[in-house]
């Protein structure tokens, strides 16, 4: 077979190769969902306007940044952190405390970041030593949220409007909100780190096969610490951006009714899971997470324009998570011996 023939046979069989017997069901559901989505997108007035698309991406930014951080943890095989919104709550309190006491943006940000890094490192050590990530972060979540509320007496902290964090919260560059730009920058950097650096490859290795990682000298302990720190720092950044936008902070900003879709932590986990990152680690990318965040935001926006209440929207996000789990688990069911 000549090279030319080979290449043509590759290109014609591309789609057929992707759709195998096992994942036919998954593909069918995917096609149905996309058709439904496109139909409603066209049928809804004002949905596909430039302004609305900008709004969608902007809404996706905060959850997306946190999702990017969480992707590292998930890829390294440490499931997910249940303390995302609590880390954000503590950071937002630290940041607002700094801002309202006139420490300036840089110092407030550094304070919030260092608290988040400390929290992440602490959880990472416990996880790396062999603690179950879910239980450890559930406990840590209680502590972090408790400390945040206790410190701020559960009150709203305001800081005056002309402050030096406005560029991040409400500022625009060339008509695009800064927060959207930082979301894109975060995604690009994270993708480059995962693909091009040895650290990124180690993340995939430890996630895909922990025993092999251990045998080649990549233990889970340093990996868990690093990934947890990354996730927590992303939480802190999202919290800072949110606080700069609101010019205020409260410990329960991120609890229960953030935005529209229930619990923020679960929403972040949803962005990681919906686009098909393997929750057991080793497979996935930041690109998928970002697309997941945008997709959830787009669906949410669509449902708002169609006049649905919050119940239906929480339900739809829940359905998205469960469906994606079911589809991906079904497709990969035979390929792994133990879930």
């Amino acid at each position: 077979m000549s090279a030319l023939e080979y290449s043509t046979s590759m290109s014609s069989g591309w789609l057929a190769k992707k759709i195998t017997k096992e994942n036919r069901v998954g593909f069918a559901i995917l096609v149905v969902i996309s058709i439904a989505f496109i139909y409603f997108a066209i049928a809804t007035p004002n949905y596909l306007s430039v302004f609305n698309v900008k709004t969608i991406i902007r809404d996706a930014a905060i959850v997306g940044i946190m999702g990017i951080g969480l992707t590292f943890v998930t890829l390294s095989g440490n499931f997910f952190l249940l303390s995302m919104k609590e880390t954000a709550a503590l950071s937002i309190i630290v940041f607002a405390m700094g801002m309202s006491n006139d420490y300036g943006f840089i110092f407030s940000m550094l304070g919030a970041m260092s608290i988040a890094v400390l929290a992440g490192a602490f959880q990472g050590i416990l996880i790396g030593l062999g603690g179950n990530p879910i239980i450890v972060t559930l406990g840590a979540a209680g502590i972090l949220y408790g400390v945040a509320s206790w410190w701020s007496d559960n009150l709203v902290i305001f800081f005056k409007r002309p402050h030096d964090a406005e560029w991040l919260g409400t500022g625009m560059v060339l008509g695009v909100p800064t927060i959207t730009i930082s979301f894109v920058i975060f995604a690009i950097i994270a993708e480059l780190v995962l693909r091009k650096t040895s650290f990124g490859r180690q993340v995939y290795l430890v996630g895909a096969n922990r025993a092999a990682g251990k045998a080649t000298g990549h233990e889970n302990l340093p990996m868990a610490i690093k990934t947890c720190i990354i996730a927590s720092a992303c939480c802190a950044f999202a919290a800072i951006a949110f606080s700069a936008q609101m010019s205020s902070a409260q410990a329960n900003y991120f609890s229960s009714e953030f935005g529209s879709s229930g619990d923020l932590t679960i929403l972040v986990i949803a962005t990681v899971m919906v686009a098909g990152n393997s929750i057991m680690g080793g497979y996935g990318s930041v690109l998928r997470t970002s697309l997941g965040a945008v997709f959830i935001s787009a669906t949410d926006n669509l449902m708002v324009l169609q006049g649905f209440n919050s119940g239906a929207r929480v339900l739809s996000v829940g359905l998205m998570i469960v469906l994606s789990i079911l589809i991906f688990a079904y497709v990969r069911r035979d390929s792994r011996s133990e879930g």
Partner: protein
Amino acid sequence: MNLIKQKLTELDPDLLFAVILSLCVFSFFAFSNPLFFTLNAGFSIMERFAVLGLVGLALTTLNAGFSIMERFAVLGLVGLALTLCIIAGEIDLSIGSNAALSAVIVVRLTDSMGAFPAIGIGVLCATLIGLAQGYLIAYLKVRAIVLTVGTLMLLRGVALFAADEKTVMLTDFRMTDFIQEKIWIFFSPASLLVILLFITVGVFIKYTKYGREIYAIGGARKEAIASGVNLKRPMMIVFALSGFCAGMGGAIIGLRSGTAQPLALQYLLLAATVAAFIGGVNILGGKGSVIGAAVGVLTVNFLNTGLVYNVTPSYVVQIYLGVLLLIVIVFQTLSILYDKGKQRRLLLHDTALTKQKMIDAYKSVLK
């Protein structure tokens, strides 16, 4: 004497740790708070005793005993549910949502059809949801946390839907007073039911084949499957029981207060996890008991009561719960690491011995 020694060696170290931890919590509050040694102290002392298993001796002040049992009812149910799941080596994150959904259903239906059919429907729904989860987990071979984090959100959406995004309320609050009626001084129908459930489940998982299967798939899943355990059956039993307990807990909370919020009851997961882990379950599965769950639940209750005595705001309770949970986790993790190190040393010791033997044999052959 020998018998005592034997009993001591047979003692479960994790349960022992739980009891010691409980004692630490009690003594902390007892010494930090002067109120404990005033006239009101009867209550606190009794709780201490209650945790030590001397319930009969302790429940001498009537109201205190009643309130202990009332607190025990709800948290006990959820703690039991989570204990069962962790014994099977899985975690059910959707407990809070399931309880909230059940509470909403029960409160909404009570007005039109009376309390008992409403409880029946609510608990049935929760049980069926649990059953479906268990089936899916076993069929798809996914980890429970992966699926239940999805259903956590899904069920909250369903609860919001069922409640029309409002807090639902009874119109006639007297309808559900029976649930707090005193029976035999200490008990209410709710707490009696929970105690009965504890005994039933305890007997079930200890003395029946299906119950032992739960321990088997938790402790050594591959071996259990290889020796012919069908993964679906124990998984469905565990998650159905978990759903049942969560639903029952939600129903009791809803009927007691006469209201139900679709977004409430999130705190249950943390409290129940703390209770289960203090009760001596191991995250690796296959370990833990109903008695342990009861001890854990009483410890958490005690913590809450002690903090109420100290007039602490509710969010500080979370700090204490989190710290308690992390202490238990650190203890467990370190004990697992210690066991691993010991095994490794034994293995190295064995290989060194074997090597020496081989060298000796070789030398003798050479001679």
